[in-house]
């Protein structure tokens, strides 16, 4: 397994990402310099999970196989400027979400650095919510988790309920009774209740019906005007093309292409249809 990985890494290394071109006429807001992100995953065991094999492994001085280290981002560099709306595309597992989390400062870099003006925030409050509790309580919990004060929460509450557009009465039911679309709408509504310096959106638009998608697109547009820059991870290329002025194409944790939406999306579409 070790050898296979090494070979794979060598093949990775052969790929040369496009060099970073600095535009001195614009104000940078996010600078990512040769960023590497590794994280550990528990529970993916290749060997037989018996006590005997574990003992043998420990005696032989090998590290735990249950803990696989994933090198998710491998030397990414780019500069984002004020007013940019950057789409990040790539196949599943290409490191898009990891990159976003690193820009947000939520995953510590293994090497390299992320430099930002202001605090980038991920539009992802879902993790703070609890399925067994009512929508009502989750709105309050989510707002407090994002760092709003109780007063601000009270003030935003009606707006969130209205934007989520849940069917009557559902706000008093536990979130576990919601359909996936309803849940996603509520999460997006809560998350967008705050203003952000740099906004990172990860697949927020993937769920929800056409009507909600239109509404959330408007909301993103509005947030983009208030924020310094917006990053959008999405699999729907039409959404990226409509919302972004620049696109990063990521593959195996490295940048393949960085350019205008038309250019990059065309190349990407061609590559995945091959």
């Amino acid at each position: 397994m070790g050898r296979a990985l090494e070979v794979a890494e060598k093949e990775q290394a052969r790929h040369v990402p496009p060099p970073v071109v600095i535009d001195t006429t614009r104000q940078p807001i996010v600078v990512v310099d040769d960023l590497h992100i590794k994280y550990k995953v528990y529970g993916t065991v290749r060997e037989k999970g018996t006590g005997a094999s574990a003992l043998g492994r420990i005696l032989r001085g090998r590290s735990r196989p249950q803990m696989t280290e994933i090198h998710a981002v491998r030397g990414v560099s780019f500069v984002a400027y004020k007013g940019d709306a950057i789409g990040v595309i790539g196949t599943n597992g290409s490191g898009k979400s990891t990159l976003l989390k690193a820009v947000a400062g939520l995953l510590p870099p293994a090497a390299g650095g992320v430099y930002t003006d202001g605090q980038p925030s991920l539009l992802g409050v879902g993790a703070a919510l609890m399925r067994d509790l009512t929508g009502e309580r989750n709105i309050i919990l989510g707002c407090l988790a994002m760092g709003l004060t109780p007063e601000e929460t009270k003030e935003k509450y009606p707006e969130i309920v209205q934007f989520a557009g849940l069917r009557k009465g559902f706000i008093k039911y536990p979130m576990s009774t919601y359909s996936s679309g309803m849940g996603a709408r509520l999460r997006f509504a809560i998350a967008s209740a705050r203003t952000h310096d740099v906004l990172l959106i990860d697949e927020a638009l993937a769920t929800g019906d056409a009507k909600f998608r239109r509404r959330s697109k408007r909301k993103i547009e509005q947030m983009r005007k208030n924020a310094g820059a917006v990053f959008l991870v999405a699999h729907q290329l039409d959404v990226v093309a409509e919302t972004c002025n620049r696109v990063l194409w990521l593959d195996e944790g490295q940048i393949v292409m960085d350019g205008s939406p038309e250019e990059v999306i065309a190349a990407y579409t061609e590559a995945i249809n091959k």
Partner: protein
Amino acid sequence: MRGFGCNRLCAMSHPERPASGPTGSLTAPPASQGKSGESLTAFAARHGLTQSAARPSLGLYLTRLWGRRHFIWMFASSKSKAMYTSSRLGQLWQVLTPILNAGVYFLIFGLLLGAKEGIPDYVPWLVTGVFLFSFTQRSVTSGAKSVGTNLSLIRALHFPRATLPLAYTVVEFQQAMVALAVLFAIVMAFGVMPALTWLLIIPIVALQLLFNMGIGLIVARLGAFTRDISQLIPFITRTWLYASGVIFSVASLHDRSDFIKENPWISDVLEINPGYVYIELARQALLPPYVAQTDPQVAATNPGTLWAYAVVWAVVVLVGGFYWFYRAEERYGRG
């Protein structure tokens, strides 16, 4: 320097960065070249950008943590609420669990093994010990998992990570409040009349809460980087339970065990241990007959010393635990 201090892989992938040439550049913003030879790190620094994964200063961290107090309380009460939603008796389990626990110990140790000899009002004495100790025990158990089970939250939002272990201790605190109400009822049911000294339970539990927060922070950091800790914790807390005079009085161990007779320092150590200190204080406050009827020779350390230990343990463990947890703040996301 940081941008260049990278590993083998990145050195191979773009050796001449950042002196970028037009060859192979797919970016075409109307760009002029950056100052040649300037690294991205220097470029970022020149524009006043700061590293986003950096750990804030201790003062700023404390301020932010204080700003999250409402979240801590809301998170804790939501957790308590969600904990029993799937069971039929629901919140009633908050009361039933400690009672059943005490019942088991009474059955085994009080009746079968005769631990109650020499202790007046054994049931209230035992229940006080079990309830107070389980507050600490549960804080340790849940604290060790507080970072690991919330990795997705850590990877999604910015907040001082100490929020999590603290919130879990607050969950246990809320449960302990319910248990205390039950405790008062049990103590009265066994014929102990409420006295003014009962009010002392407030500072005692408050100090215990501070201590639990501290130890919760310590095990949270241990558990975040070494998951195996949570497998070990049940054994550690069980040993601690027996060593803290929850079921047998520490003083009576002196008579029972030849080993302790030969090594009297052991019982001194047991009487300094925080598990014992908070329980003993609570017993003395709640059960005046216990204090009155216990032979002063066998009786424990004098109350003044106990209070001093209680305060020192609370302050030292909380301050030390907090600082130690804070030191790894930026690394918790890696799991």
